[in-house]
């Protein structure tokens, strides 16, 4: 897997909000089928990195490439159509639309209209809870169910990379494990690459292949998940263990 061409590549990204520097010279790669975890404290630039990949912010310098093609100037909808999907922070399902309608919004960019109905059914097979609730408004679902819906909605665009912004946030500890298992399963079954922003570094690294650590807008560390877990600096900064 190490030698395959990168699916997504950020190089030398710089993002400013007004005068403030949010990201400085950030470069990272995600290879097909990989789970990559993006770690860092508050305001370290994790979310900004995610937004840069999704096209929600425009970098002042640097490039974003998908399959080697420059997508730095592409709009968000075009990036979704090209194979990047998003599981937004705090899930953000459409509360007054049914589960089925939420799934259809995920397929908005697809052109193969005929296959969509079949894919909706496939999601129901994969997430049986959603099948039971398909006619219910998404706002009436529990937090864990909404997270499953957010995954399924992202999958509906047939992505090759899913960006997940704090997928375990606000969930009960019981559901945190379930969600992480689910991410690992999606990755294994569908072969979809995952970029995951997570506050809880240990949890994130437990399922990730590799990780990057950001601090005040710069990349400070990167490596295999196991290496990072064992790294004293990471342990001290993010895992609360004295070095």
């Amino acid at each position, binding site marked *: 897997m190490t030698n395959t061409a990168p699916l997504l590549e950020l190089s030398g990204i710089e993002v400013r909000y007004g005068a403030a520097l949010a990201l400085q010279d950030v470069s990272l790669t995600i290879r097909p089928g990989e789970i990559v975890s993006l770690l860092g404290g508050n305001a370290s630039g994790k979310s900004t990195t995610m937004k840069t990949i999704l096209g929600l912010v425009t970098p002042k310098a640097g490039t974003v490439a998908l399959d080697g093609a420059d997508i730095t100037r592409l709009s968000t*909808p075009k990036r979704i159509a090209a194979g990047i999907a998003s599981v937004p922070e705090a899930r953000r399902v459409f509360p007054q639309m049914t589960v089925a309608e939420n799934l259809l919004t995920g397929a908005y960019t697809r052109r193969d209209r005929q296959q969509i109905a079949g894919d909706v059914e496939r999601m129901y097979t994969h997430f049986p809870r959603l099948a039971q609730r398909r006619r219910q408004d998404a706002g009436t679902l529990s937090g864990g169910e909404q997270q499953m819906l957010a995954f399924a909605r992202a999958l509906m665009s047939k992505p090759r990379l899913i960006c997940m912004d704090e997928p375990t946030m606000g969930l009960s500890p019981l559901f945190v494990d379930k969600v992480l298992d689910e991410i690992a399963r999606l990755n294994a079954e569908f072969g979809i690459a995952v970029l995951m922003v997570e506050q809880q570094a240990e949890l994130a690294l437990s399922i990730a292949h590799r990780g990057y650590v950001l601090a005040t807008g710069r990349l400070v560390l990167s490596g295999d998940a196991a290496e990072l877990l064992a790294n004293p600096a990471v342990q001290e900064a993010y895992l609360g263990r004295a070095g």
Partner: protein
Amino acid sequence: MFDTLVAGLIHGNAYALVAVGISLIFGVTHVANFAHGSVFAIGSMTGWWLIAERGWPLWLAIVGVLVVTGVIGLVLNVVAVRPLSKAPPIAALLATVAAALILDNVAQLVFGARVRAFPPALPTNNLQLGGVRFGTSDLVMFGVTIAVMGALAAFLKFGRAGQAIRATAQDPEAALQMGIPVPRIQNLAFVIASALGGLAGVFVGMYTSNISPSSGAAAGLTAFVAATLGGLGSMVGAVLGGFVLGIAEAFGISFWGDGVRDLITFGVLIIVLVLRPGGLLGRSPTITTEPLTGTFNAVGRAIRLKRWQVWLAVAVAAVVIPLLADNYTLTVGSQVAIYAIVAVSMTLISGSAGQITLGQAGPIAVGAYTAAILTAINGWSFWPALLLAGVVSAVVATVLTAPAWRLRGHYVAIATLGIGTVCVAVIRNWDSLTRGAYGISGIPAPSLFGFQIDDAVGLYLLALVVLLITIAVISRIRSSHLGTVLSAVGSDEIAARSAGVRARDYKALAFSVSAFFAGIAGALLAQQYTYIDPTVFNLPMSLLALTIIVLGGMSSPVGAVLGSIVLVGLPELLRITPDVRIIAYGVLLLLILRFRPQGLWVRSAAKRTDPENLSPDGQEPPSEGDSSRLATTLQDDRPVGASS
């Protein structure tokens, strides 16, 4: 009885069509589109022109109207609304107000201002049921409306783009991340909504047979009330609100006459906003997620004149102008000073307390009538009448607005609009006190130490002195502890409230003070006109006052005076005709909102040195609420915050 119901249903029919459009646009863009009524009026006039002047058949004319109004809706979004999507929501609301001024007056230039007879395209009196006569025309209107509503509902429920519209309405940022092209979806909503408005325009033309380009404001406001009644953002609510309002009006008019229409419309509005701000079908919690009002003043800081500059300005205004100017110029000068009094005091509401008022003509009218009644009818002398005009105006405004302060955002603006209209509607209907539509004439000139102030110089100096007093009082308030508290409420209400400030009371206080001065200005206006009637105090007057302070920078009394000179004085001196002048106001307002939202005469924030008031990038602090999420996401993980 039964025919009143039919009349109500037919009006309700049209209100529903217009209200659905307002609700659709509000849902998708979170903008209260005040230009929607103008689109309706243009639909009416285009329908008339195509049928009467070009001889098109009805169905083809309707197609033409749908195209014309749909295109106008698209342009409206692209030019006025979308560029402000990242500004505080009230900016987009003001932009639609500006667009309404432009559209109304362009329509007057294109179609002529006079009332036209809409050609009878279908029989209007050929059927009978239960003793009520009606026509094919009415049936067609009903049938088409129901079909259109059904089609719209099906489209929103099942259509790909319809579902995208709903997704965008519920969470625009998440919609974008699903690959939904949000700006294009918003365009689509504007096109559909505006075409529905145009269709309603044709129908109202067919029903009332008399139409004019200026009918838009009233229709738009009524539909706005209908949409609010049903719950802004709810389509079913808009239809329901339209019919409830149409029927309520029809019965009100049949009992009390045509004059009560505004009273009923805006009475309903105020009651809804007080009792159930979310509307009949809207979810009440929407009110809590309503974006903070937020004016633009956080970006800039008021200019302060140096002492010698102040004296120079006063000397020019008080000595040079009276010596050199002719009577006409002096009369214009009085107008400038009177509007400046209104505007300077409004900076307390808009600049300090962070609220927008769209109804300042109401307090002005109350003051004008108080003074007129006391002096012309009861024979009071001018000075006590002047003072009482301010007091009555402040009391009336305080009582009427008291319930509005628990609202936020657009709802405050809508409530002030309603209050302004209610004041004037009461004046029009209270014949025994105000002589109703006849107005009050023969308002005597004030006298001072036995001298009559009845010439242009005297009236000018009087207005100028009152203006200087106003500026002194307002500046004193703004630099006092009270002013600081008001600014705190205006710039971050939640923070102010958590610091123990009773935000509502302070907003009410700011509004009372500015109503007091508006009342005084009204009294001066009555004195100068010597004749007043209710039509003087219309919506354009309120909007002019607001435009003045937007131009001058919301927080700047000096800017308000300069704004008054530019917007009241220059057009008068340059003898620009009223419709062109109003178009110019509209264009100017749009340009300011877009390119210089902090106002023309304000120092920019970049030069500010007080670090605690400045967010890291010099932008405004992020506001809460759904519609501003797109903007705030760009600011929510600032690395600078890491230092804390």
